């Protein structure tokens, strides 16, 4: 019985999916009898089986649903959306009951009288008694009488036909011509009661349309059995002919389904458990590996006797592999079957009009992959409907057709399958995504400024970007898109989004066809070999030893120029902690594998690239599973075990490490300027041969511009940069452009303005202790220090920034940098504010507590202003130190802070106000 139930569950789940989809179709084409017949038949079958299996609750719901559908069929009720909704509700309830049946093996307690009453009311709606008995009668008779004969009664599309046949033929038990025909459906039902006689013919036995036809023929020829027949499947009031006719009609229904959604099930098929297939797959994989091993061993030998058979073995193994792979393939349409229903529900709920277009349903992919992308796909389509498409009125206003359109398509490309989900809705809301990303701490204002729209859109995939509860705050997308991304990446896939405001968005997913065997690049690193899935490899680049590409260092981090863009580079040696990292020297060669890590390129330095090979991915042992650098292990053709690198794992570490490092450096570098600790300096050449040094922490980024992109406007040189004009100031005496050479520019961004400082050449990045030997009167130079054994001018960035700001009327005298004492007990606050002030051209001395403040005071330091938290400033005043200086308090609660004795109280978050106030007080002071 358990087998029966589980078989029933599988079949019914499939039927219900079809019903869902068909109902939606039916709603749109109420005239299409074929659809209705199909739905009716499926539901009827479910009901019949429930009766047979003794599932009264399910049966009652199915029965009520069927009654209502019967009214549609008989043309007694008009089809309307509320009606369809009602039937869908019944279907949903059946699903709920089935779920619990699956879990517990029994129907849940309770009853569904409310739903049934609704369904019955609907059915009664327009007509009374007279017709009603008609539709339900047939099934009822069937249930009661047929229990036993129905024994074969497992449900499938072919079931009714099967029942017809067996009803007709079986009673006679005619071992003659009827037997084979009869056998087929019975076997399909998987019950086996009829097996004894039919065993042999049965084996291949699956139901096909042809067989059914044959069955009907035989039934037709053998009317002698009729007396028994009505008991089985045909209602009392039906003549044999009628029965036959309806059976034929059903058959057509089957054909129809075969052509539409559920094709594979009606073709000649045998049900095989997934475990068997998985087992086969594993065995074949082993066979393939052994074959490879054998081929490699034999390669060197000239043994003709062996060669022939081996060749055949190889070919047969290949065929076997293909065959087994095919058994695992399923059309992607299987994963889409639920979507029409979902779209219908969303459109009904939200009052939107949505058209769902599906292309390439027949595209096949591995069932394991299919299972894994089912949920993400559903999620994304729901998102498109929910958030992507506008309300009909808005669409009309925007000049679009009222009905929104979501298009799903799938196709093969190389060893991958590409699935795209696009809609013609309003597109992603870049601004709000940006705000949200800031709010979530995923980026900073400055970074955001520099990002392209596409980069900002990708935040929707960032972990923690959005949680279901907060979705409504963001009218774009992003519900759990990080989960979607994770799911897709788990199977070695990639997801990306492209969106145009007002035009719609387009999500594309690229996934491997199968997870079992993947193509991999075998690389060498420190005498060891590693596999990298080809899917993640964008390209290979040779570096060093005569190659035009080199790995350069920026700020301690490795980068490589690849087609005019800087790509972060990681060394596999470093990541794995083996051997020595690539030095980047002229004569040392290495390879950079350009990996696609979450849409961004990351280069991985390896010693060499050895081969590509088809590998069978084996899961990692527990003890290795939490090493994120690996996704699995595999056995190569030569029998050795190697690790499979996980590009996302590798890049994830890199990217987060890089970001963290960058943040830390930004925060600390300027502070350390005065603390006399080491700091990173960018060495450049500009106007002369001697190097100049710029504190790297102040540089937002490095760019190169074509000389002809530099324009002159209003007497100033500017360049169009990220949609704005950015002034370019020469660090030397003039901007020196060499024909055909790009001009290196240091970009400084502050708040919403950016300034470019043109240099002749970027020389190096050094980390040194800056010991200022001489201060300077020269404009734009803080002083000179010995860096890398050479006297080097340290550039006063603030002066240059002022130079470029024509609007900045209060241009500060550059002869003396104003000094500020920054007092804040909160180390983090100090690190936040200090670079800000430094960038604005102030010398900052940070102090964490009164102890430090006192020792600074004892050292006789002079300052132009005090900045800090109000409590600390108060105490300094009370101690009688620097009482004549302006004191600027910054706090998170400016309105709660009494301004007694303080020059001004400012909110900590307002950087601009602080700088402005500071500029003002130092100005006043000068005047005074």
């Amino acid at each position, binding site marked *: 019985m358990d087998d029966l139930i589980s078989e029933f569950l599988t079949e019914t789940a499939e039927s219900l999916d079809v019903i869902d989809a068909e109902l939606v179709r039916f709603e749109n084409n109420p005239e299409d009898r074929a659809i209705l017949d199909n739905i009716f038949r499926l539901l009827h079958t479910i009901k019949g089986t429930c009766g047979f299996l003794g599932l009264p609750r399910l049966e009652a719901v199915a029965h009520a649903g069927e009654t209502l559908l019967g009214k549609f069929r008989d043309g007694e009720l008009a089809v309307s959306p509320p009606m369809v909704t009602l039937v869908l509700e019944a279907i949903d309830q059946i699903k709920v009951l089935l779920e619990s049946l699956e879990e517990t093996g029994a129907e849940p307690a309770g009853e569904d009288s409310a739903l049934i009453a609704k369904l019955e009311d609907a059915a009664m709606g327009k007509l009374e008694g007279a017709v009603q008995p008609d539709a339900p009668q047939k099934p009822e008779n069937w249930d009661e009488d047929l229990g036993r004969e129905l024994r074969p009664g497992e449900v499938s599309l072919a079931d009714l036909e099967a029942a017809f046949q067996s009803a007709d033929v079986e009673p006679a038990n005619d071992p003659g011509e009827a037997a084979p025909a009869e056998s087929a459906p019975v076997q399909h039902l998987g019950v086996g009661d009829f097996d004894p006689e039919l065993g042999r013919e049965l084996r291949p036995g699956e139901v096909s349309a042809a067989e059914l036809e044959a069955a009907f023929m035989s039934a037709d020829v053998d009317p002698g059995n009729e007396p028994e027949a009505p008991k089985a499947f045909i209602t009392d009031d039906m003549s044999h002919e009628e029965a036959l006719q309806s059976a034929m009609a059903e058959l057509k229904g089957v054909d129809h389904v075969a052509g539409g959604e559920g094709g594979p099930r009606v073709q000649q098929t045998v049900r095989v458990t997934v475990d068997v297939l998985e087992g086969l797959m594993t065995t074949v994989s082993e066979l393939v590996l052994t074959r490879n091993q054998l081929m490699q061993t034999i390669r060197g030998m000239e043994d003709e006797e062996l060669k022939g058979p081996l060749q055949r073995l190889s070919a047969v193994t290949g065929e076997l592999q293909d065959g087994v792979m095919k058994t695992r393939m399923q059309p992607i349409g299987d994963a889409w079957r639920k979507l029409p229903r979902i779209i219908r529900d969303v459109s009904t709920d939200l009052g939107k009009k949505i058209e769902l277009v599906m292309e390439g349903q027949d595209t096949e992919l591995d069932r394991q992959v299919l299972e894994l992308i089912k949920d993400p796909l559903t999620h994304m389509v729901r998102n498109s409907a929910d958030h992507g498409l506008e309300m009909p009125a808005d669409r009309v206003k925007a000049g679009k057709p009222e009905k929104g359109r979501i298009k799903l398509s799938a196709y093969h490309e190389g060893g991958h399958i590409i699935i795209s989900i696009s809609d013609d809705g309003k597109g992603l809301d870049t601004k709000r995504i940006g705000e949200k990303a800031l709010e979530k701490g995923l980026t900073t204002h400055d970074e955001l400024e520099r990002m392209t729209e596409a980069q900002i859109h990708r935040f929707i995939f960032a972990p923690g970007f959005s949680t279901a509860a907060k979705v409504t705050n963001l009218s774009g997308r992003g519900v759990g898109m990080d989960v979607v991304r994770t799911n897709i990446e788990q199977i070695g896939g990639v997801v990306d989004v492209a969106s145009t405001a007002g035009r719609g968005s387009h999500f594309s997913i690229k996934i491997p066809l199968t997870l079992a065997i993947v193509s991999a690049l075998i690389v060498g690193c420190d005498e060891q070999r590693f596999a990298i899935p080809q899917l993640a490899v964008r390209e290979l680049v040779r570096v060093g030893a005569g190659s035009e590409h080199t790995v350069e260092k920026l700020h301690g981090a490795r980068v490589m120029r690849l087609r005019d863009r800087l790509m972060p580079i990681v060394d596999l040696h470093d990541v794995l902690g083996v051997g020595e990292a690539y030095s980047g020297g002229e004569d040392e060669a290495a390879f950079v594998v350009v990996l696609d890590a979450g849409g961004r390129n990351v280069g991985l330095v390896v010693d060499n690239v050895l081969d590509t090979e088809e590998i069978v991915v084996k899961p990692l*042992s527990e003890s290795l599973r939490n090493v994120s650098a690996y996704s699995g292990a595999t056995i190569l053709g030569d029998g050795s*075990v190697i690790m499979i690198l996980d590009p996302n794992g590798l890049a994830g570490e890199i990217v987060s490490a890089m970001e963290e490092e960058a943040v830390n450096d930004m925060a600390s570098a300027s502070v350390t300027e005065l603390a006399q600790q080491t700091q990173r300096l960018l060495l450049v050449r500009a106007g002369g041969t001697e190097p100049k040094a710029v504190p790297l922490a102040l540089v937002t980024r490095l760019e190169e511009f074509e000389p002809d992109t530099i324009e002159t406007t209003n007497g100033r040189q500017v360049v169009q940069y990220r949609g704005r004009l950015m002034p370019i100031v020469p660090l030397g005496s003039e901007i020196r452009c060499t024909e055909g050479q790009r001009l290196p520019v240091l970009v400084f961004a502050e708040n919403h303005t950016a300034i470019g400082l043109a240099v002749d050449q970027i020389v190096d990045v050094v980390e040194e202790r800056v010991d200022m030997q001489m201060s300077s009167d020269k404009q734009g130079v803080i002083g000179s220090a010995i860096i890398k054994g050479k006297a080097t001018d340290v550039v006063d960035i603030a002066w240059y920034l002022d130079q470029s700001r024509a609007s900045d009327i209060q241009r500060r005298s550059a002869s003396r940098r104003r000094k500020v004492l920054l007092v804040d007990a909160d180390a983090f606050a100090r690190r936040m504010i200090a670079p800000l002030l430094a960038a604005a051209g102030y010398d900052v001395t940070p102090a964490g507590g009164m102890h430090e403040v006192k020792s600074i005071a004892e050292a006789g330091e002079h300052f132009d202003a005090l900045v800090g938290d109000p409590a600390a400033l108060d105490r300094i005043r009370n101690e009688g130190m620097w009482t004549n200086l302006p004191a600027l308090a910054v706090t998170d609660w400016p309105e709660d802070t009494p301004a007694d004795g303080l020059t001004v109280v400012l909110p900590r978050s307002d950087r601009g106000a602080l700088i402005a106030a500071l500029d003002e007080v130092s100005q006043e002071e000068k005047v005074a």
Partner: protein
Amino acid sequence: MSSQHSDNSGLGAEAMNEYVSVRIGDQLFGAPVDAIREVFAPQSVTHVPLAPDEVAGLLNLRGRIVTAIDARRRLGLTPREKTETGMALGVERGNEIFGLIVDSVGEVLRRPRAELEPVPAHVDARWRSMVKGVHRLEKELLAVLDVSAVIGTAGQTNKAA
């Protein structure tokens, strides 16, 4: 596997424990025969960078990937010389096969179950978590390994306080 040599297993077989005797460092250990799938010589073990210390690497055992666990490391002994490959006890757990790398493998020993004595309380706690008991042999002591505990990953071994 190789332990089907018992002619005299008829009498008192139930009261006997069978052990594969192995040497790890200076100590003689017994691994219960029924816990061991097979004994093999580990060949071409692939080192896995970043793996926990006790994981000696991965190796190919007839098409299956075996995680080699270094018994010396697990027991806190000095690591073997690189040149010594040792021997491996194949242990199946769940769907995975582990290879417990020991210095050498001796004969199969049968000892009366009744003679198994508890591990003395003052033995190092780490050992006590991996040794089920002690048999007194004529010349030396045979420490009975809890193979599963020796294989166990960190998460699974600290089950007992």
